């Protein structure tokens, strides 16, 4: 189980694999445009944080393939369950890019959150791995109701140490829930290396104990991520149950904007891994295929920049909400007196909000 599926080579030592069946030129360009959009979001978000325009931000620079690849294998009906490392994944499902930015600006309610049923994208999970059982429950419920959909849930290598990982994997396998467990093994949980999370050689081999199949893929390769997810989804949709995918890669960036990796790891190692980052590598691969040229690459970058420029504008157009936002969305039913009393303790002019 130590083999790693890869399709995109590095144009040098690693040869390209055969072009995947079922991906037209248009599809390949679409995946590329998703990678570019995610990269652009991430870089803009980091810049916004440095400028003090948003709060702490966990970047995903280098992990774009682990997001765009598996998502491209999904149907619109499939549900996505992001961790905080995939906080912008909703924008590939139609969520305004300003929404995840507003969330990072520290604004909740209707600005920073969304209705997950609208996009089939769950709220991002902040604690580690505790969203895995939700992904299982939803897919299991759908299966019981005869609806053909699957859950795709992302988590990191650190999450595999959590009890919720075990319980979710076990429930999914016992009830044959159509869930794709997508583990982004970037080898670092803040300062803790994967060797401190597990004594197994791979994450993938953990699947054996649950009675489910697993595969390892190059986490910098969007087509390998796509291909494995596609295979797992085909199986899940025909009643085969869950699947574990280990996307082996490296956390090229800090854990977040408040983290300094030079304190705990050899940055020369990170630089070596950086040569495998997915956006440049995918562009080079698509050029070798003759699918991408300067004009198309420029168009993808321009489109992403425009989306992000609008998103930043929309983010900044939102005024600081008044304190009503503390109270209004807490319950689905009418606000209990305890909350109304809290809300009414604010002077009316504060409740309205504003800058």
């Amino acid at each position: 189980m130590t083999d790693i599926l890869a399709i995109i080579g590095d144009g040098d030592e690693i040869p390209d694999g055969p072009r995947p069946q079922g991906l037209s030129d248009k599809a390949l360009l679409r995946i590329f445009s998703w990678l570019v959009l995610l990269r652009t979001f991430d870089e803009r978000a980091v810049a916004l944080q440095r400028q003090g325009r948003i709060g702490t931000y966990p970047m995903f620079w280098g992990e774009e393939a682990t997001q765009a690849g598996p998502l491209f294998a999904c149907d619109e009906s499939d549900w996505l369950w992001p961790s905080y490392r995939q906080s912008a994944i909703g924008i590939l499902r139609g969520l305004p890019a300003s929404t995840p930015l507003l969330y990072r600006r520290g604004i909740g309610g209707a600005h920073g959150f969304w209705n997950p049923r609208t996009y089939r994208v769950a709220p991002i999970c902040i604690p580690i791995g505790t969203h895995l059982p939700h992904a299982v429950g939803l897919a299991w419920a759908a299966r019981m109701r005869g609806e053909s959909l699957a859950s795709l849930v992302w988590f990191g290598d650190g999450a595999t140490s959590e009890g919720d990982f075990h319980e979710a994997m076990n429930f999914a396998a016992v009830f044959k829930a159509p869930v794709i467990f997508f583990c982004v093994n970037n080898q670092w949980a803040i300062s803790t290396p994967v060797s401190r999370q597990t004594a197994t050689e791979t994450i993938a081999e953990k699947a054996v104990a649950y009675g489910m199949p697993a595969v390892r893929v190059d986490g910098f390769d969007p087509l390998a991520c796509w291909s494995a997810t596609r295979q797992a989804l085909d199986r899940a949709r025909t009643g085969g149950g869950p699947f574990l995918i280990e996307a082996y890669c490296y956390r090229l960036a800090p854990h977040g904007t408040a983290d300094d990796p030079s304190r705990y790891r050899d940055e020369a190692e990170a630089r070596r891994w950086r040569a495998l980052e997915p956006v440049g590598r995918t562009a080079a691969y698509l050029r070798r295929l003759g699918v991408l040229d300067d004009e198309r690459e420029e168009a993808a970058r321009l489109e992403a920049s425009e989306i992000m420029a609008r998103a930043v504008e929309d983010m900044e157009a939102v005024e600081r909400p008044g304190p009503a936002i503390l109270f209004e969305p807490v319950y689905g039913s009418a606000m209990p007196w305890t909350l109304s009393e809290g809300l009414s303790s604010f002077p009316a002019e504060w409740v309205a909000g504003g800058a």
Partner: protein
Amino acid sequence: MVEGLNLALDQAMAADDRVLVMGEDVARTGGVFRVTAGLLDKYGDDRVIDTPLAEAGIVGTAIGMAVYGLLPVIEIQFDTFVYPGFEQIVVHAARYAWRTRGEVPASIVVRIPFGGGVRAPELHSDSPEALFAHVPGLKVVCPSTPEDARDMLLAAIEHPDPVIFMEPKRIYRAGRQDFPEEPPFDISSADGVTTDYLSKARIARSGHDLALISYGATVPACMEAAERLSSERGVDARVVDLRSLYPLDVDTLVDAATACGRAVVVHEAPRTAGLGAEVSSLIHERAMLDLEAPVGRVTGFDVPFPQFINEDDYIPSVDRILAGCNKVLDW
């Protein structure tokens, strides 16, 4: 009470096919307390589900089912077993509405048989309700009669928000009560009605000299204490059964304290930061000038629930309740 709970589950499942029951040993054996007995045969194993032995997994998968649009009712086998699922309840179930603009609350019911008095093994007798009452986003309720058990469980199932449904296991099989079998509201159009059943206290005994405020298994003990106060001291005690532990029915509490001028809160859970502290505080804040004495508390102690040989030393007895009442009456 077990029959009332079973009836509620049966009626909810019959009327609303989104409702399902899941937990440890709930299907084939009908639950260790038989609350879910007979449901498997009636509704099948897609709606009455024996799960792996994993409380975080049970609560967590139920949340996912609720996001899908089902209405899962979870049974936690015994009170202390809920702790592995606590994270899922506090972080996720309680915040789902908040994290989805109020549009997708985690509509689950977590049934927890709780408390001592049944000679159970160690770690089967906790009263953790205050932990949940402290968590924004949850509703926490506790019936003390078979009819309330049926009505409140039906309401909890149809209620949009996550409900922690505390079941006082000591009175699971205490006394029978005749009540109309018909559901108290139309299950198929319960919107807005359910809150009434999950927010109002009940006057279990009327009186004007002393308010005895309690919930769950100590309500019958308070009723007995009230009868003895009447016969032994000529004191006419009002017994208030809270039913809703969050939110508290502040109007009924303040009315009782104002009318009686004296109040005692009784619960089995440990004293510090228990529900009694909140009840006492609310009354002092809102009815101070109508009080003849400070609000008293008769509670469990700040100790782990004892081994069962000593459980009667821990649980508030009628005598301890009477002593607490006398202290307030003689203040």
